[in-house]
């Protein structure tokens, strides 16, 4: 019984159609029910599918809906697969998606009706494409979802399209993603050329036979796939769109730009683990890019004042973490962090949204402070989220997944102590900047202006309920992946490891033996330091703002560099955008298009006109001349025929 799988993506699509076409007649109440309702149903079906998959033979269930394309050697069915990876993903996507839909009912409640149903239509459409991406059984189906979520991301970033910055940010996200999509398409074509199929299962299974391990071809394919992943998952060099994407409404940032869409790149890498382990060069590139992104984004995050921008850079940084895990062959650790990150980052974004909602769309943390007593639920859940991302040992979800990544980057055969060091420093910076936002927003003196302060209020239950649920998940979510060194003594196994047993391909190398004491030592070291950073940031930014200012002055050039995001946007402006712009304008437009192409077309026209102009002299209307012409012509024909 798995004929219902198609309903999981189809329900949000139905929601999109209803909200987009019918809702304007029924008004807001209709949208409030349909928007979250279809996602809730989809979530229920996902749970059913997940449970069925757990018991199914072969650990996956498939529904072959119908044949989409059949042409020569190309055969693409519309088929949905729930296996270990996609099963977990659909739970995250529909579960977190459902919570965020409920939240949006409260958050977007003030918007006018037209904007309201448009928002939910886009959000439903996004979930449809995301589920298609995750459930699709082949590259082509994944690509449909891939482009679809890109489109919805564009629509939702540019949701306030009458704001210039939002329209620009949407455009930027779309264009930058297109660069990654190019890599994805070329990789797909290469795979089809070599395998003759686009089905994931078949490609993964046949990869060792078709492609030489470490060869140029497999390296090229995986690097191109990774290029696609860097675009979607915001890694160096294509991460620049994600911070700007914060122009969209906050629930969108939570759903698309933190919890789900940006993890599509990781999904792709994890899905193709069979290919990636064959290319050690690519794996090294993935790990290094991931570590570098994690580090750079974290440093930028420390100097931003816009609360959503801090969270955005934090997302980029955490995604880098996950890629680092994948790069050292720890696919499971990466996916584990995808899950926990979806919980606590969605929580943090929604919390910041709750604050922004109460502050009448003020996002600058310099004008916040002391909000905890005004909005306790938001405040405490946000703090739980910050504790989770900071990795408070033993009881938050972030600790387990982050520690797993750090340990794997150290101990895995493809790992390196340097990767561990970068990861550990990043973890400390994460703890620091997250508690900087906590202290600046919820503690210390209130810096809220008078008018806003009068209206400060806790958010409605539609917003606080998702916050509470996510806060619980941010704590218990990690307990499925308790490492052996900790769980063994008290008899708790690593449920996640058991779940993913034999699912991902392994890096072909001897697993070096490491003492449990090493793992415990490293774990303890990072944990204690992270706690120290949290406390330091809390003290510095809640009670000693003057000293923080002094520190900022002392580090002035560095601080400026970080606040301006390393001038990367300016660099791209000068190195990429301006040259492309002027090449297009001066060379392609003014020269090639106007001179050469238009020149050819107009030249042909002018040529015909001039020849005609020359010839019309003989067309003078004097009948005798025509008669002479006829006679001479006839004589000539006669002459040539006879002689």
């Amino acid at each position, binding site marked *: 019984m798995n004929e219902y799988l198609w309903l999981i993506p189809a329900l949000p699509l139905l929601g999109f159609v209803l909200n987009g076409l019918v809702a304007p007649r029924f008004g807001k109440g209709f949208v409030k029910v349909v928007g979250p309702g279809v996602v809730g149903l989809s979530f229920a079906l996902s749970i059913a599918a997940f449970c069925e998959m757990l018991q199914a033979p072969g650990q996956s269930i498939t529904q072959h809906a119908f044949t989409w394309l059949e042409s020569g050697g190309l055969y693409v069915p519309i088929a949905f697969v729930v296996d270990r990876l996609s099963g977990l993903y659909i739970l995250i996507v529909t579960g977190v998606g459902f919570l965020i839909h409920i939240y949006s009912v409260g958050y977007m409640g003030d918007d006018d009706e037209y904007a309201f149903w448009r928002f939910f239509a886009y959000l439903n459409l996004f979930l449809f494409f995301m589920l298609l991406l995750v459930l699709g059984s082949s590259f082509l189906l994944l690509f449909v979802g891939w482009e679809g979520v890109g489109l919805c991301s564009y629509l939702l970033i540019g949701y306030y399209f009458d704001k210039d910055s939002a329209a620009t940010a949407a455009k930027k996200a779309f264009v930058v993603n297109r660069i990654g999509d190019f890599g994805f398409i070329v990789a797909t074509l290469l795979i089809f050329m070599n395998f003759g199929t686009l089905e994931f299962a078949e490609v993964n299974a046949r990869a060792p036979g078709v492609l030489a391990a470490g060869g140029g071809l497999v390296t090229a394919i995986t690097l191109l796939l990774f290029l696609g992943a860097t675009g979607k998952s915001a890694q160096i060099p294509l991460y620049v769109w994600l911070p700007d994407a914060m122009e969209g409404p906050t629930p969108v940032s939570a759903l698309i730009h933190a919890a789900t869409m940006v993890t599509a790149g990781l999904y792709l890498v994890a899905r193709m683990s069979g290919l990636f382990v064959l290319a050690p060069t690519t794996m090294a590139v993935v790990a290094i890019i991931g570590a570098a992104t994690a580090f750079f984004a974290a440093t930028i995050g420390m100097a931003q004042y816009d609360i959503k921008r801090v969270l955005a850079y934090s997302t980029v940084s955490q995604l880098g973490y996950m890629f680092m895990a994948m790069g050292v062959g720890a696919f499971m650790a990466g996916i584990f962090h995808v899950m926990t990150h979806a919980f606590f980052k969605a929580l943090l974004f929604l919390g910041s949204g709750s604050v922004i909602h109460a502050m009448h769309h003020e996002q600058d943390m310099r004008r916040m402070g002391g909000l905890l007593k005004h909005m306790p639920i938001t405040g405490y859940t946000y703090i739980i989220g910050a504790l989770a991302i900071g990795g408070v040992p033993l009881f938050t979800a972030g600790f387990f997944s982050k520690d797993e990544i750090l340990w794997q980057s150290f101990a895995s055969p493809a790992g390196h102590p340097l990767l561990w060091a970068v990861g550990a420093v990043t973890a400390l910076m994460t703890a620091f900047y997250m508690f900087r936002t906590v202290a600046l927003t919820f503690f210390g003196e209130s810096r809220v202006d008078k008018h806003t302060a009068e209206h400060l209020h806790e958010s409605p239950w539609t917003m606080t309920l998702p916050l509470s649920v996510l806060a619980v998940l941010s704590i218990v979510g990690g307990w499925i992946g308790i490492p052996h060194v900790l769980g063994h003594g008290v008899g708790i196994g690593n449920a996640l490891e058991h779940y993913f047993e034999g699912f991902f391909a392994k890096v072909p190398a001897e697993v070096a033996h490491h003492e449990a004491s090493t793992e415990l030592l490293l774990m303890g070291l990072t944990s204690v330091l992270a706690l120290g950073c949290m406390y330091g940031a809390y003290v510095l930014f809640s009670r000693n703002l003057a000293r923080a200012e002094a520190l900022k002055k002392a580090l002035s050039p560095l601080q400026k560099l970080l606040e301006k995001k390393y001038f990367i946007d300016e660099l791209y402006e000068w190195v990429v955008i301006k040259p492309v712009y002027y090449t297009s304008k001066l060379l392609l437009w003014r020269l090639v298009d106007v001179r050469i192409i238009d020149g050819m077309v107009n030249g042909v026209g002018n040529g015909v006109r001039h020849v005609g102009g020359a010839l*019309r002299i003989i*067309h003078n*209307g004097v*009948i005798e001349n025509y008669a*002479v012409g006829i*006679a001479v012509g006839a004589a000539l024909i006669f002459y040539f025929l006879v002689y």
Partner: protein
Amino acid sequence: MIPVSHVLTLSAILFGIGVAGVILRRNAIVVFMCIELMLNAVNLGFVAFASGMQSMVGVMFVFFVLIVAAAEAVVGLSIILAIFRNSGTLNIEEFNLLRW
């Protein structure tokens, strides 16, 4: 018996006169008559060949040419009449409406 070549020569001369008339004369009716003259010169040629080659095909052709010539005379004279009514002249140098 007059040799065929004599008749053909006469035909060529008549045809030449017709061509010269068409090219040189200005009066539309005269030009028209010259065209008739050319047609009949060709007819003469056909008849000469028919008698010389003991074949009826040439004679048959003459009938067709006569029919075409009669039809052409009807249409042509009508056009000339119409032009004369409109422009009051038969000088073909004045008929240059088709000019650019």
